[in-house]
């Protein structure tokens, strides 16, 4: 399979102190990592693409490691998500190659992360934005942790590129009060509750 040719990496971190309500004593943080790589399948239909997932594994681990560092360690992280933007010479299926290397990289670094990593993907042009969903790492039904982070770069993805994205968060929405399963009440066995 082809090499991973990296043009750019970008990282964002947000710290949210309040949203019109009381100032949080432990402000939630969320961070995103984006890698802009060449799409090795751009411009043609290629039937056999799965081998590229293996090639993406080191990149997944690199991005996930950086996010964990930015947020102060694996024990800080309670939510995650992933996504991809595929430049216009590619197809949606190319973005799906990020599921395994992106998701498993995060779960490898995070303890008690049995929940599925939520994701979004689309084909789009330079400057487009992706809303990457975020849910609790160990129990998908934890309502307080449903969130998202908008990511994108003004100069990517070019037609022959893909943007591969990972997102992590340190806690619930800043003024979460919509009920549902609470993080402290999860059983944490099935990844759901």
């Amino acid at each position: 399979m082809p090499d991973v040719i990296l043009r750019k990496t970008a990282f964002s971190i947000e710290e949210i102190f309040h949203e019109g309500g009381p100032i949080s004593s432990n402000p939630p943080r969320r961070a995103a990592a984006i890698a802009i790589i060449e799409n090795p399948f751009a411009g043609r239909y290629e039937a056999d693409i799965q081998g590229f997932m293996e090639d993406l594994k080191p990149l997944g681990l690199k991005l996930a490691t950086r996010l964990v560092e930015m947020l102060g360690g694996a024990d800080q992280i309670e939510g995650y998500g992933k996504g991809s933007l595929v430049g216009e010479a590619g197809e949606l299926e190319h973005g799906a190659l990020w599921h395994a290397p992106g998701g498993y990289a995060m779960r490898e670094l995070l303890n008690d992360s049995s929940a599925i990593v939520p994701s979004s993907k689309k084909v789009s042009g330079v400057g487009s934005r992706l809303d990457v969903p975020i849910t609790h790492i160990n129990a998908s039904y934890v309502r307080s942790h449903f969130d998202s982070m908008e990511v994108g770069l003004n100069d990517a993805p070019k037609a022959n590129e893909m943007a591969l994205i990972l997102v992590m968060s340190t806690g619930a929405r800043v003024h979460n009060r919509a009920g549902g399963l609470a993080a402290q009440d999860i059983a944490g066995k099935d990844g759901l509750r």
Partner: protein
Amino acid sequence: MTLKIRKIAVNIEETHREIGREISPATRKAVAVAVIENPFAGRYEEDLTVLMDIGAELGTLLGRKCVEALGITPAQAQSYGKSAMVGENGELEHAAAILHPKLGAPLRAEVEKGAALVASSKKMGSPGQVLDVPLGHKDAAYVRSHFDGIEVRLNDAPRANEIMVAVAVTDSGRPLPRVGGLTHGDAVGNDGLK
């Protein structure tokens, strides 16, 4: 009235390749943004001292966030810039009050020296709008390789009663500079220009 911050965001961009050529070491830019309450939203206030003082606090805070995000010493910073976007209940002058009288000196302390004018931009805006922060060399404004910019936007800011304040710092110029002019290596950096 003091500084009331709703959120802070820090972005870093690293360019490893440009037009097919490897960039080693990668060029790197950071931008830090604070979303603050506008104490004068919805009314005309003659005396903008409060915003000037807020600017001083943000010069330190945001400058330091950028330097930390890049993982560099203050002396390794090469260029900088500052910008503000005011939500719809404010006025453009609020951005000027934050950016110009007092933000520069504490920012310069965070990047060491900073003899050159800090490039700036300002605008009125709404949640999700783009703020382009101009970049120029921190000690010699004529260094041509370091004229650049970095875009920042937040989907939820600035709300009508808010102001988004951004500071950008780099440890490098453009990835493949070749339009001549004064270079980083040849800059003297005493007068802020050459």
